[in-house]
């Protein structure tokens, strides 16, 4: 018998909990020749902004132990291109599409939310990027002011009843407190966590490895930190969580599911192996069979204390 991995968040149903994290899966068909998009639980797009953005100077990525730093700077072709070129592509794919958005002003967020609200046949949810470490305006530094985060969420909420996730990073401050405030503001779920700001140095050239000097650290190096946040937030609040942070294997994904994650978003692993999501899904199914778990809901959040 195939274990039932169906995951529900509000009225939205996902056939399994394995999603792809924003920024690691492109905005359209980048991985389509390697995998079947309909096998995924959800697709979260790379961040879309109202105006096109050319992003940061090169070099933008660098490898680190168990991860990588990136400072792409939200390069994207803007909202208009997304509507004209990307939406028609996803119209044919049944996997729920979650569109990640960022803005430089409240007006940007208002336009994005209002516009996407008109595409409910394709766009199933919004993820607000409140925590990009690599952009000045609209990034994690800018959002550090609690009032700004809250007003962004409030604005989006006013413009759409699409399920709305807020993507957070510990860079923003006390996540427990912020989560509580966002929930009060009407957010439907949280995405935990975005990359952690880091740095690397080329000792031969005695220079920064990234032109932006700092970048967002992703990959298995950040997994224990991300796991802790998912655990703490799930323990404190009854709020759906999309967990991300270094998920490379099924066992990584299961750690997040055991602490209560609703969806697990595979990110950097896609760069190493386009088959990562498929392998993770198979591994979760194997695990459920091994422990005779009929429904993923029977497993989710069932973490127990160590026997004394």
């Amino acid at each position, binding site marked *: 018998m195939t274990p039932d991995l169906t995951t529900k968040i509000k009225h939205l149903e996902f056939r399994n909990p394995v999603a792809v994290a924003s920024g690691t899966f492109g905005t359209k068909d*980048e*991985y389509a020749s390697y995998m079947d998009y309909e096998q995924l639980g959800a697709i979260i797009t790379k961040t879309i902004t109202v105006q096109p953005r050319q992003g940061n100077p090169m070099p933008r990525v660098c490898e680190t132990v168990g991860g990588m730093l990136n400072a792409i700077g939200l390069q994207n072709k803007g909202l208009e291109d997304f509507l004209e070129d990307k939406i028609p592509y996803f119209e044919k794919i049944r996997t729920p599409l979650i569109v990640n958005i960022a803005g430089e002003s409240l007006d940007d967020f208002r336009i994005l939310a209002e516009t996407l609200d008109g595409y409910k046949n394709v766009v199933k949810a919004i993820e607000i990027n409140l925590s990009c470490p690599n952009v000045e305006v609209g990034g994690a530094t800018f959002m550090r002011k609690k009032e700004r985060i809250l007003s962004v969420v409030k604005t989006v909420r006013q413009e759409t009843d699409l399920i709305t996730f807020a993507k957070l990073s510990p860079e923003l401050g006390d996540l427990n407190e912020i989560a509580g405030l966002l929930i009060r503001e009407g957010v439907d779920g949280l995405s935990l966590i975005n990359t952690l700001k880091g740095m690397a140095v080329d000792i031969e050239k005695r220079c920064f490895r990234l032109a932006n000097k700092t970048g967002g650290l992703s990959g298995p190096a950040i997994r224990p930190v991300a796991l802790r946040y998912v655990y703490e937030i799930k323990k404190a609040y009854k709020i759906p969580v999309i967990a991300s942070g270094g998920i490379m294997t099924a066992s990584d994904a299961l750690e997040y599911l055991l602490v209560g994650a609703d969806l697990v978003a595979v990110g950097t692993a896609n760069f190493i192996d*386009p088959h990562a999501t498929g392998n993770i899904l198979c591994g979760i199914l194997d695990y459920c069979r091994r422990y005779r778990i009929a429904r993923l809901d029977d497993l989710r959040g069932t973490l127990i204390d160590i026997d004394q």
Partner: protein
Amino acid sequence: MVNQFVTVLENRKVNGQFYKLIFRCRALAKHAKPGQFVNLLVNVSYDPFLRRPFSFYRTIGDRIEILYEVLGRGTALLANKKKGEALKVMGPLGRGFKRIVKNKKRILVGGGIGVPPLVFLGERTVVDYFLIGAKSYKEVLPAKELSRVHGKILYSTNDGSYGAKGYVTGLLEQLLRKESPQSLFIQTCGPRPMVQAVMEIARQRGIEGEVSLDETMACGVGACLGCVVETREGWVPSCTHGPVFAFKELR
């Protein structure tokens, strides 16, 4: 597209500087074109973590050859791979070199570890001249490695230990004295200062051509936007829009 494990058939030094890796992969060999690349996962490990892009050096039947230089930890580990060990390969990726240049004379200009994709191109097309720049004799490929190239091969070394002394651009300028620019098409790959100098020479004389650019990459499929190159149309990922660009596409 291929994303699978392959077995190392051969992996050894071919001269004082470069290694040759050979593995078998029918699907990859069938579709690989000169200038395209394979994203190679040396080890399934967290350190080094990412794949490494390598241009195709040659395909023979279902055998694939990669020529590489040990430059960092990834290539150092690759150099230690023994016959029978596994690697994971993904590709073929990117856009390769133009194979039809109509009535023009094809001139290939390669430098250092930028030579391999041009060897592949030179074996699959007819070239008039293949100019190769090397630091010294250590980097010069054994004659049999170039025996399948259809065209005249000229070497230059920085220290004069083989061929002409000086940069490969010297050979190019010499050649251009006797050719009319409109009749030529240059295809180049090599260290950034070298390809920039080649493009500058081409621009001054109005010669068309293509360059293969080498950027640090992560995904190889245009998803991460980590390897972008500035073109007339903006910043585009070199893994999908390149790595081969027409001179006129670049600013």
